[in-house]
């Protein structure tokens, strides 16, 4: 059981790590706990510095960002932390982080959601915090959070595909901001559906100009650096700035759809797609990275970006297969590895060169 409440004094104030804009559905999910919800401060360099300073050196950056979020949340009053489990080392995050934070002298409770997307286990864990929690209430929060997640993923996908071609600078971002604010307040499925519909329509009507030398690039890799823009140095935005339509399969909706009873079929499909470059699963998201790159290539994309935290073993395993695929089909794959020393200017140079390269391949002059 993943709940430890021994040290909490006074009323609960619950917090959680950031990942993209998923703090919106996470807050919905946490409401049935009937306590104050403390959203960690926005990610900054400080978040990573704090996290890195107190982390074992060998751990991957997602761990460090999570820890940084916790510290910043505890510092503004949180006393109950939620950690979701899964993945490979990710599964051990919570214990180690809890120990580190206690060593630092913080007093807090910890709820570890280890069951992946298993609702029954979540409810059991949540009841330890709020014994009055009814099944109905928890279910409703879960459904609303899922619907918010789906809306978020839909709207952001549309944005990824089009923001690079907006005629007026920042047009998409302004709409996106309003969308997030509305979505954050919605607690009825009908309302969320309406918000999604309206904002998809509004974004679809933003004037865009797709140039002849437009590029289509997919991004694959480890899920945290894929979904947390701060940790990938806003790589999607950076690509958009360079006139690229960005495609990404991995979202929380995608993960939920393929979890639970669908998981085995999904993994089988991934292995089939990854053939002949992978025969076995390589752990965490590695198999998907290979499968999706293979698919993107066959769908006629211009190239793929592979993102991973430095030292992430499942993705290191995937890289060997990706390198082979890239070589055999002369299909461009750019490998980006993130740690706290990754330089922003170095990354910009590599993205520039990658986009130039893709344009030259298309027989259009570089610009």
């Amino acid at each position: 059981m993943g709940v430890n409440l021994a040290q909490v004094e006074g009323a609960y104030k619950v917090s959680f790590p950031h990942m993209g804009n998923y703090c919106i559905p996470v807050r919905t999910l946490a409401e049935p706990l009937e306590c104050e919800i403390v959203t960690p401060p926005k990610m900054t360099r400080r978040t990573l510095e704090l996290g890195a300073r107190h982390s074992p050196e060998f751990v991957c950056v997602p761990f460090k960002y999570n820890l940084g979020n916790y510290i910043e949340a505890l510092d503004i009053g949180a006393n109950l932390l939620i950690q979701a489990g899964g993945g490979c080392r990710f599964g051990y995050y919570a214990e180690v982080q809890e120990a580190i934070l206690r060593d630092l002298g913080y007093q807090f409770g910890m709820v570890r959601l280890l069951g992946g997307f298993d609702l029954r286990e979540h409810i059991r864990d949540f009841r330890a915090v709020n014994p009055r929690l009814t099944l109905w209430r928890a279910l409703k929060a879960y459904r609303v959070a899922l619907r918010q997640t789906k809306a978020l993923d839909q709207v952001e996908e549309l944005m990824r595909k089009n923001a690079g071609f907006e005629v007026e600078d920042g047009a998409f971002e302004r709409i996106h901001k309003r969308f997030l604010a509305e979505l954050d307040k919605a607690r009825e499925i009908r309302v969320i559906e309406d918000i999604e519909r309206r904002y998809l329509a509004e974004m679809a009507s933003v004037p865009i100009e797709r140039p002849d030398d437009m590029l289509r690039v997919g991004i694959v890799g480890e899920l945290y650096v894929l979904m947390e823009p701060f940790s990938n140095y806003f790589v999607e935005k950076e690509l958009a700035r360079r006139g690229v339509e960005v495609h990404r399969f991995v979202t929380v909706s995608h993960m939920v759809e393929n979890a639970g009873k669908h998981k085995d079929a999904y993994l089988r499909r991934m292995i089939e797609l990854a053939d002949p470059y992978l025969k076995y699963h390589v752990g965490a998201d590695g198999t998907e990275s290979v499968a999706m790159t293979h698919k993107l290539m066959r769908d006629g994309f211009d190239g793929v970006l592979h993102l991973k935290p430095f030292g992430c073993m499942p993705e290191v395993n995937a890289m060997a297969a990706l390198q082979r695929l890239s070589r055999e089909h002369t299909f461009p794959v750019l490998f980006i590895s993130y740690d706290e020393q990754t330089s922003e200017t170095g990354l910009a140079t590599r993205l520039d060169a990658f986009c130039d390269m893709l344009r030259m391949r298309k027989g259009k002059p570089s610009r």
Partner: protein
Amino acid sequence: MGSWKGERVSKAYLGVDVGSISTKAVALDSGGEVLARSYLWTEGNPVRAVKNVLAEVEEQVDGTGAEIVAVGTTGSARQLTGAILGAQVVKNEITSHAVGTLSRHSDVQTIFEIGGQDSKIIIVRDGVPVDYAMNTLCAAGTGSFLSSQARRIGVPVEEFGEYALRSKRATKIAGRCTVFAESDLVHKAQIGHAVEDIIAGLCNAIVGNYLNNVGKGKEILAPIVFQGGVSKNVGVVHAFEQATGHEVMVDEDGHLMGSLGVALVARDSGGEAPFSFAVRDVAFETVGEECGGCPNECEVVLVLREGEVLDGWGNRCPRGMERVAERLGVSKVTVTSAG
């Protein structure tokens, strides 16, 4: 008016490559022929280095009737240089090197480059770059490693090549890391290995390190062109040929390929604007300051032209430039980043 003597003004294109160690410039005519070339040390002062290469280029262009109509910049200080020169094109070093090399060797499939502080590899197929990698972290695979070892052995690095070629049996030197290589080298010298064998071993170590780092996982096919400062070293060229089993070509302008490439990109961009060498007399200054507006702690760099903000970067949000400019008491930012 001025053409009564029958001379015609022809168009020329300037390419400037400012790295941390050296600064290079070429001027090309519209056919891509080199009208002027310059190669100087950066010595930690890119602004001065740019002015100095400009002086050399001006001298050579003078009297040819050519006039610079477009400028391209590349190298680690490309943005700064681009701002100062009002460049039409600011390009990363990979693209610039690929374009430059392809203009001379259209059938090249692999480009090796080892410079003073970094190294890169570019894989080309059918005249188009398809893959690349670069290394800026490990010193063991770069020119600065060779020169520091040369000092240790007491043989000028320029003579390394001849020594290496004389060696019959190269000493094995652990080349994975500068620290290991150094202590290994001292050890081998003490137990009596000949100087030429040690030098040949060093060349092999550089090549081994390069192929195992930047070259890792890449399909290396001939024709191979080798450039960057270290390509002048015949010992390293020879070691590359042995390791790859292919002939390795070195262009006499190999050290200028970045500037050459970016001059070509500037030419092909179609953008033109008057350029004057008088820019050498303008006072430029760069100031770096922490913004302090939020915990991101962005290091904002402003380029000042005669005390006014010309360009700036390093800020993650628009507030950064304004904050720093205000604090320094310089006039409001009017130009945004040159990209």
